[in-house]
């Protein structure tokens, strides 16, 4: 019965911010063509208006192109995607009151993928313009999450076995639908693109991809931080939360909306990258405890850093070929999920 060691919020945040910055500098340099971190830093600083003139350009134009046009957008996208997935995981866990929730495990990613594929290959949502992919992914995510949520509620409570099983079932259904869509795809090029995107990848990141997910992350994060008390109270159970002044139904609806928007916007640019939303919140809670005021920002940073590095691995392990990031996170995350499942059941029994 020892007191659990928890770290102060300020040092943890400062450390993570520093780690994120270092990660960006290193990750931008790593890849088939490597650029040293110092050069990277100089290239980046030279782009800051008013300050840039002070730095003498000693690098090659090719290096600058790689950094600014190829790697930096990719690394930044990695940060945003990782942060969104982690925050998405935190939110879903509060919603279903279970640490095993994750957009991938509960089928939300599959739902988003199915709808997005439909849009990609058949132009089903093309009337929505350039954001059609994001919006169709959001719709898929929203449909799935509502579905899984409704199936797993028994007598006003989320039943854990039902939650996980309905997640599996729904994601199978959605994967099946994706399969049907792919088989009846009208053109081969679209199919190839869809395949690569589906397995989860940050390759081909452009600055233009970054805007929407970053905006969505910022807005959702602000909303969640404002409601950090409500999120904490939901973990006590619906009745206790209600008795402590939370309008439970309304908050739950908002949380479903936020997770769907975040999952949709993220999956639209990166495909489905699994288990980030499971692993990151877990480590975050070990670090700073369960209070959402701390869990949200810390897991956002941790998630970003994690995805940036997994993406570095994805493009270096079998260079010059690339692995989809989603495959790597699944290989790491799967066993992790099993370990947590065992730990969870053991705690229930004791």
């Amino acid at each position, binding site marked *: 019965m020892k007191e659990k060691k928890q770290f102060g919020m300020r040092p943890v945040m400062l450390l993570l911010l520093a780690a994120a910055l270092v990660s960006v500098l290193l990750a931008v340099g790593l890849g088939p063509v490597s650029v040293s971190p110092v050069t990277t830093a100089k290239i980046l600083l030279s782009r800051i208006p008013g300050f840039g003139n002070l730095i003498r350009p000693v690098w090659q134009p090719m290096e600058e192109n790689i950094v600014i046009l190829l790697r930096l957008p990719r690394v930044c996208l990695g940060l945003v995607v990782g942060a969104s997935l982690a925050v998405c995981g935190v939110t879903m866990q509060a919603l279903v009151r279970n640490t095993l929730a994750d957009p991938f495990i509960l089928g939300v990613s599959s739902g988003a993928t199915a709808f997005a594929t439909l849009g990609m290959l058949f132009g089903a949502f093309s009337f929505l313009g350039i954001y059609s992919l994001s919006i169709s992914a959001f719709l898929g995510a929203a449909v799935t999450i509502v579905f899984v949520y409704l199936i797993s509620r028994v007598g006003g409570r989320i039943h854990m076995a039902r939650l996980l099983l309905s997640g599996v079932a729904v994601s199978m259904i959605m994967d099946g639908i994706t399969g049907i869509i792919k088989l009846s795809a009208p053109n081969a090029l679209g199919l190839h693109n869809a395949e690569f995107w589906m397995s989860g990848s940050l390759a081909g990141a452009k600055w233009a991809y970054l805007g929407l997910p970053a905006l969505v992350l910022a807005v959702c994060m602000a909303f969640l931080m404002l409601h950090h008390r409500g999120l904490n*109270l939901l973990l006590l159970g619906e009745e206790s939360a209600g008795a402590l002044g939370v309008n439970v139904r309304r908050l739950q609806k908002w949380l479903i909306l936020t997770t769907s928007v975040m999952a949709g916007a993220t999956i639209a640019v990166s495909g489905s990258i699994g288990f980030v939303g499971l692993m990151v919140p877990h480590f975050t809670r070990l670090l700073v405890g369960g209070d959402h005021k701390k869990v949200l920002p810390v897991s956002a940073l941790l998630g970003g850093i994690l995805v940036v590095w997994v993406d570095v691995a994805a493009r270096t392990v079998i260079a010059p070929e690339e692995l989809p990031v989603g495959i790597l996170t699944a290989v790491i995350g799967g066993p992790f999920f099993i370990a947590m499942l065992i730990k969870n059941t053991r705690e229930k029994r004791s």
Partner: protein
Amino acid sequence: MKLQIEALSYAYGGKNAVENVNLHVEQGEFVGVIGPNGSGKSTILKNVYRALTPKQGKVLLEAQPISTMSHRETALKMAVVGQENDVPFDFTVEEIVAMGRSPHKRLFDPDTDHDRQIVRHALEHMGMETMAKRNYRHLSGGERQRVLIARAIAQESDLLILDEPTNHLDVGCQMQIFDFIKRLKVTVLSAIHDLNMAALYCDRLYVMKQGQICMSGTPEEVLTASNIFDVYGVRCTAEKHPQTGKIHITYLPA
């Protein structure tokens, strides 16, 4: 804080679990609800703290129907310690107690020194100040219940709703919890399982049987051998204990 329940009915599915219940708690009273398992004690309380919405009838706090109040407003007036005390996440004792401050907070309000002081006092009142940093999940049943009551204290509301707060606890913990609550000098409505505990701590009792209130009054009036036989089907003797001056029940085996 005055609480009134008027003609309350509630049904899970078809059959009424609670029917036409009238009950009131005056300012400063400690009122108990007793009755066999499944007689509707929890259902009444859940209708009061809004985990359930009444099918018929209403619940009034200081003459205002709670259905017209926001969840936050009701949380400022009454605190609840329910049967749900399992938290599948890692929180420290202090964090759980601090959650009692939530209804006092608007969206942009930060936690202040005043809040931290209230939390510390609540913990001290329950004798839990040395455990502030402990993980709530690692506490014993009795300690958890003390934390939840500390949370209710931090909520600073005048009415306390308790749903069998000492269920599954040993007799030492039971007495300790009730003593702590009694010392708070707030208005209390509590479902109680143990009739001797009810006799020791309650000013008035309501007796539930099959979803209806079958009698009410002071422990002396209600807890008689014949009444207990009627409600529970158990033979017993009920006498005033010379030391406490309260009713004491001894059950007689068949």
